């Protein structure tokens, strides 16, 4: 069986310019990333700001072209193709991902028009709202009339409009309260089962990842430093950065606390990732004042 999504040696660099606008170097925002997600699977990409996780999502969506590597959906390379109906995305901030001047129905209609959906569009919009457990009459509401959780449901409905195979979820619940987050995650799981969706779940929230993803890749400075089944990676982390991430998660029970790896303190303080790596490499941690 072919994978729903296959990422091969993806590289994206951004030029660094000096003060006068000359290119003086390059940052490798994504530096040789590969992974595959089997059909119906949930792959979690964990990383902090600057890890390259958003750049990967943008490349999969076709918003940015990679410098090297390939992206295959259902075994077919999608590079250079403009529109990608098979893959859709749910954004981080439900407040900003819906146009404030357009009704929910108008927003959901966008992909239907773009991909020339032939059937009854109004009916389809209603069905989509049903799917995300919102009343059909919400089609006439404006985003400011909805709560954060409702907006995120609308964003999910919109992403499902053209029956994609794969959903990229970019921190879909980080802006929501925990009780709302739990419901949105339940919805995503149920939809995944019903529609046979494959998810790429991008988050910095390791607890959530533990519960939602089956496989996890830990991204640090553009590279996947560790990957494997989520239970294995979280219980027996093999890389220092994974250990640091896990040790940093605020938890609510002693069982969880016991699970967190012990990290050596530097000057009585939790080390930064750079310092920890430097310590392991036998170097003296350098001062990091920027």
């Amino acid at each position, binding site marked *: 069986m072919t994978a729903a999504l296959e990422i091969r040696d993806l590289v994206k660099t951004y030029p660094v310019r000096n003060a006068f606008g000359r290119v003086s170097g390059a940052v490798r925002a994504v530096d040789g990333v590969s992974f595959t997600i089997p059909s119906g699977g949930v792959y979690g990409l964990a990383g*902090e*700001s600057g890890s390259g996780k958003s750049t990967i999502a943008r490349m999969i969506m076709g918003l940015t072209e990679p410098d090297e590597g390939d992206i295959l959906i259902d075994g077919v390379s999608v590079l250079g193709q403009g529109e990608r109906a098979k893959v859709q995305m749910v954004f981080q901030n439900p407040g900003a991902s819906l146009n404030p001047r357009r009704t929910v129905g108008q927003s959901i209609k966008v992909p239907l028009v773009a991909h020339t959906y032939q059937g009854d569009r109004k009916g389809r919009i209603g069905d989509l709202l049903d799917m995300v457990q919102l009343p059909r009459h919400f089609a006439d509401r404006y985003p400011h009339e909805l709560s954060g959780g409702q907006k995120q449901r609308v964003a999910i409905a919109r992403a499902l409009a053209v029956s994609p195979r794969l959903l990229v979820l970019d921190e879909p619940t980080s802006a929501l*309260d*925990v*009780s709302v*987050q*739990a419901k949105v*995650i339940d919805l995503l799981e149920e939809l995944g089962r019903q529609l046979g969706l494959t998810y790429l779940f991008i988050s*910095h*929230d*390791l*607890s*959530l990842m*533990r*519960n*939602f993803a089956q496989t996890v890749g830990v991204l640090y400075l553009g590279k996947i430093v560790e990957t494997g089944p989520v*239970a294995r990676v*979280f219980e027996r982390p093999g890389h220092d950065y994974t250990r*640091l*991430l*896990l*040790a*940093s*998660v*605020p*938890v*609510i*029970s*002693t*069982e*969880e606390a016991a*699970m*967190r790896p012990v990290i050596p303190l530097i*000057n*009585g*303080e*939790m080390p*930064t*990732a750079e310092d920890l790596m430097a310590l392991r490499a036998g170097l003296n941690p350098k*001062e*990091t*004042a*920027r």
Partner: protein
Amino acid sequence: MTALLSVQGLSVSFSTYGRTAEVLKGVSLDVPQGAQVALVGESGSGKSVTMKAIMGLLPQPPARIHAGKIMFDGRDLLTLPERERVALRGTAMSMVFQDPMSSLNPVWTIEDQLTTILKYADRRLGRDRDRRGRRARVIEVLSQVRMRDPERVAQSFPIMLSGGMRQRVLIAMALLSEPRLLIADEPGTALDVTTQAQILKLLRDLVEAQGLALLMITHNLGVVRETSNYVYVMNKGEIVEEGPTAGLFAEPRQQYTRDLIAAVPRLTGRVAL
């Protein structure tokens, strides 16, 4: 022993466009001397309003405090003359702001901002400290928050510092005049997890070392467990449950607290309900 800070039956309403909404309905909480207390709630629960009322930062109008007392060190802050109330701000009680990106003035150096605050705090306390003394104190506090190069940080403008360092500056700002109560407004939530962990540990260490009372305002139950030993759970303007942190997390009594705890994803994976 009486509490250092004691909020008693605080009720606050907001009036906008002719409509009045009651946002706090008789909130009571105690922060004893040297204790670490958390106030946890989701958005709209009223935790920020409570915090602002304690700090005296509620804009009135539209807000109106119509019942209750805020006792600090045996005096009711709500009936205190404005001058005396201002005198307490940033000195006896001070606050760690949430957003490291926007809580520092972009056009002045760190040293400039910290010495200005110190100068007027000294003046209110009747303390005599010259420019050089103030500078020394600023450098001292910057090293207390484990800034590696306090001299250089002091000379920097905020945009030259990383988010984590700015958050440390905000903590240093709160410590300048040796307060007895520290009110922390979700410090570190805007930062990466590893940086947040550093900040929380730093805060914990400081509070313990200096014997400060801490009131941690947060929406994150994990942060509550990491930083407090007593917790108040707030919902819709009311305290729904309170108790020692470990006990309350292990055996929540109220349905709301139970649901809230159940909604938190666990690092250990799914819990059987």
